[in-house]
């Protein structure tokens, strides 16, 4: 297996492309064409069809769900260039990447950087195979934007930690196998008292209660820890290093949440196409409602400018070998535009765009409404827009508090 991967990494791009095509032809079930990556999403129980299972296993065994991760831990070991070819071919075949979730988006990259050799060998391969679902135990009722205020205690009991406290907003907590948590190991220092701990969700004393959201869904939980025993080897890094590690993980989260990643994929049909289906056009094909037409154009121009900014940020980072300054605006701009788009879609559809359930609405219309409501969270989680603004003002622009 490893030798196969070594070949992938260095092989001539065209040879590799052929290999990918052949792999897709042999392994990708037709019925999954154009289907989303249901299992990789945080929401929803882990039920999969036979086709989904075989596709996940096929991709997982090559490590191609996590193409650039090191092959020794089950990743694809591909160069960026080869990974790009893989993505292109998947897209052409209308095939999704069946490996995903918080393990892939945030936890894996962080563990690769900070985990011990044993931890990487234990946790990374199951993520690459899409076998284990992770959830994020960061927020608490009194530790939201002020995350470092977290109070969940992990007490040193010799060979294990005894964990007590409450997390909230644990995405997918009711379906997750494991949780990466920020816990307090020292009360005397706000930041240095925080540690990064991995907790099995089926440990005795862990209880999850789903939270019902305005969108009608409940993919988030309150998670309670009551005298939960956690083995010492589940500490990532050193005691007190949790804040540093935890923040690194948030960087991965933000990269994924900003427009470059998931937002762009969420977009679907263009607003103009939606408008042409739902509102009148004049004999020249123009949207007859002049105000609406103006607003759609206004949105699409800004959306294009945003995509160009995301691209420029990536190019600058690559050229400078560091994070580009402008990447600090991507999350706030991308999430805002996503919300605006959902609002505009509703406005285009009129009351047809506000259906909750029942007769008279298409699946897409109903999904749009839930998505519109759920999308209100994007400017709150992963560092709210206000917190992003604080970061931009202080760290990028050097506008310091007057105190």
């Amino acid at each position: 297996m490893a030798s196969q991967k070594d070949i992938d990494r260095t092989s001539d791009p065209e040879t590799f492309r052929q290999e990918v095509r052949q792999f897709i032809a042999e392994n990708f079930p037709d019925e999954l064409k154009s289907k989303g990556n249901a299992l990789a999403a945080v929401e929803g129980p882990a039920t999969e069809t036979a086709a989904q299972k075989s596709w996940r296993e096929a991709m997982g065994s090559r490590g191609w769900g996590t193409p650039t991760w090191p092959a020794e831990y089950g990743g694809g070991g591909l160069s960026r260039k080869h990974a790009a070819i893989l993505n292109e071919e998947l897209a052409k075949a209308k095939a999704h990447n069946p490996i995903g979730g918080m393990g892939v988006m945030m936890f894996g990259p962080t563990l690769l950087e900070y985990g011990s050799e044993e931890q990487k060998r234990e946790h990374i391969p199951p993520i690459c195979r899409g076998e284990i679902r992770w959830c994020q135990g960061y927020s608490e009722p009194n530790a939201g934007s002020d995350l470092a205020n977290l109070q969940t205690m992990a007490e040193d009991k010799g060979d294990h930690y005894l964990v007590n406290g409450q997390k909230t907003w644990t995405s997918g907590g009711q379906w997750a196998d494991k949780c990466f948590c920020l816990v307090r190991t020292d009360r005397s220092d706000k930041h240095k008292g925080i540690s990064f701990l991995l907790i099995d969700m089926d440990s005795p004393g862990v209880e999850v209660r789903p939270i019902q959201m305005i969108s009608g869904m409940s993919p988030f939980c309150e998670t309670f820890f009551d005298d939960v025993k956690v083995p010492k080897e589940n500490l990532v890094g050193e005691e007190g290093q949790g804040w540093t590690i935890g923040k690194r993980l948030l960087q991965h989260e933000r990269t994924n949440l900003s427009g470059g990643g998931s937002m762009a994929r969420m977009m679907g049909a263009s607003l103009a196409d939606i408008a042409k289906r739902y509102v009148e056009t004049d004999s020249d094909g123009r949207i007859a409602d002049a105000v609406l037409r103006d607003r759609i154009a206004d949105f699409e121009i800004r959306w294009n400018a945003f995509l160009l900014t995301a691209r420029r940020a990536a190019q600058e980072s690559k050229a400078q070998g560091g994070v580009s300054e402008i990447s600090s605006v991507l999350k706030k701009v991308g999430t805002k535009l996503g919300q605006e788009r959902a609002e505009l879609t509703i406005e285009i559809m009129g009351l047809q765009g506000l259906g909750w359930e029942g007769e008279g609405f298409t699946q897409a219309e109903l999904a749009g409404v839930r998505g519109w409501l759920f999308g209100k969270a994007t400017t709150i989680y992963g560092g709210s827009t206000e917190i992003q603004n604080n970061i931009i003002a202080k760290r990028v622009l050097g506008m310091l508090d007057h105190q």
Partner: protein
Amino acid sequence: MAVLNEEQTMLRDMAREWTTNESPVTEWRKVRASGDPQAWDASVYATMAEMGWAGIIIPEEHGGSDFGWLSAGLVVEELGKTLTASPLIATTIAASAIVLGGSDAQKAEWLPKIASGEVVATLAVDESPRHAPSKIETTVSGGTISGTKKFVHEAHGAHLFVVAAKDGLYLVPSGDGVTLHDRKLADMRNHADVEFAGAAADKLTDGGDDLLDQVLDRARVLTACEMLGMAQQVFDTTLDYLKQRVQFSQVLSTFQALQHRMADLFADLALMRSAVEGGLQAIDAGFLTSQAATIAKAEANRVLHQLSREGIQLHGGIGMTDEYDVGFYLKRARVLESSFGSTGFLKDRYARLSDY
């Protein structure tokens, strides 16, 4: 706040006391949980009618109090604050059509029953999901009406429909030839598509050519009143929350970024209130009603849109939960923004009314 006379002050205080004590948002939660498509409680509407609210714009000779639109608006604003579900707004709008365009016989037949709460009525205009009163295909021939109206507010449980046909407004009692198809919108209120197929229809002949416009102006203003109550409530709740929630060892209200946000919203809310009250006063005065109604609903759309969004954002994660009320206001807001004129429609109407 408009300067109120003694009668109006009493009415407002009574409405506020009643909604606060008898109809807080928890009552709406109960109605929602029942899953009843009517989505309002008949005994609650009977109480409202007993308090005289169903007859506020109906002349005294027909059983109303004729207190006028500003008074009606005061009550509706209070209902909006606590999301009280009732057919009062729809019925008041429909009643205005009869007041403006009904013959003596039609007035005598319907208005007393509306004022007493016995009859629930509603206006049925739009035939597509977007407000378009100039595009009506419904026709009447030989005294019977055929056509389909979309997303009619409070259609379930309505006894009387005021229906826009190609050649004017008609009264159509529910019953034979009237079929309802439930439409569940995000606000979980009472909406249905209403199909008229050969139902008996009685024309409102005394209102002149612009009767539909006049009624729609009233619908816009009264809807804007509900929106005003909602906006005020979201603002107040958010302000309270910011004064309590502690992050970074200080209450959120001490952050200047949030202070300025609230100051901006406060200013917008002031504009919205003036616009809405201006609409009510214009109807009472019978002067430049269409302009005033357009301004009222357009400002209501703009400000409530913004406030309902900011309300959630400033509550943070808990604003996204069903347990907090603020999400209900967002969902209801978008339905009302779309009803009787989206912002695009209203801007266009304003420009046309102003001859440009």
